[in-house]
């Protein structure tokens, strides 16, 4: 079975600093990869997804992620964060076989301070 690991439960950064949120996955088959963002007391919103092709994926709000098959990673990055980026970020995978079932990591809380 596949699994997703987000090692950092919380990442504090200052405004305008760069940030990287780490995501590693394990799966015996190929996967599709997703990053979602959740603002307080709201549902999840898709930031970006990797399906195939270029390993560098650009998403909304200036975020990007790079798929690294050899390291089974899909880290999320932003070169300069804003206060409004404070939220919980979830990495998720879907196996390239079987039903469309998202498996989520436990999430990383990004705290941006002035």
């Amino acid at each position, binding site marked *: 079975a596949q699994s997703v690991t987000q090692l950092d439960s919380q990442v504090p950064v200052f405004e305008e600093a760069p940030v990287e949120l780490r995501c590693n996955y394990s799966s015996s088959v190929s996967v599709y990869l997703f990053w979602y963002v959740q603002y307080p007391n709201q549902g999840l919103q898709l930031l970006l997804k990797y399906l195939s092709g270029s390993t560098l994926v650009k998403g909304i709000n200036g975020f990007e992620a790079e798929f690294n098959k050899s390291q089974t990673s899909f880290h999320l990055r932003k070169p300069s964060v804003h206060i409004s980026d404070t939220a919980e970020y979830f990495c998720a995978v*879907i196996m*390239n076989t079987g039903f*469309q079932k*998202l498996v989520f990591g436990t999430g990383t809380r990004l705290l941006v301070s002035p």
Partner: protein
Amino acid sequence: SQTIHQWPATLVQPVGSPLSLECTVEGTSNPNLYWYRQAAGRGLQLLFYSVGIGQISSEVPQNLSASRPQDRQFILSSKKLLLSDSGFYLCAWSASTSRTDTQYFGPGTRLTVL
């Protein structure tokens, strides 16, 4: 455009009471529908999914059940709530069974069982 609604937004229920959470989708037909639960520090766990009216698949054996009485309506129920049922419940939909289709999430229902 498509929208997804959940109600109620918040709910406080005593242990042993029944539960009914509703999710409806507008602007699409024959969507896949999902119920997730988000417990503190545990990410999102898929509870149920449905590919059509009356078709429910359960991912985790538990105190909850789901039903899909209409194409765009998904209901999560319990006959007797447990303390462990507390959490943030999210409904989601996707356009088809393609694994590359994005799942779109509703605003969620925060359930507190006392």
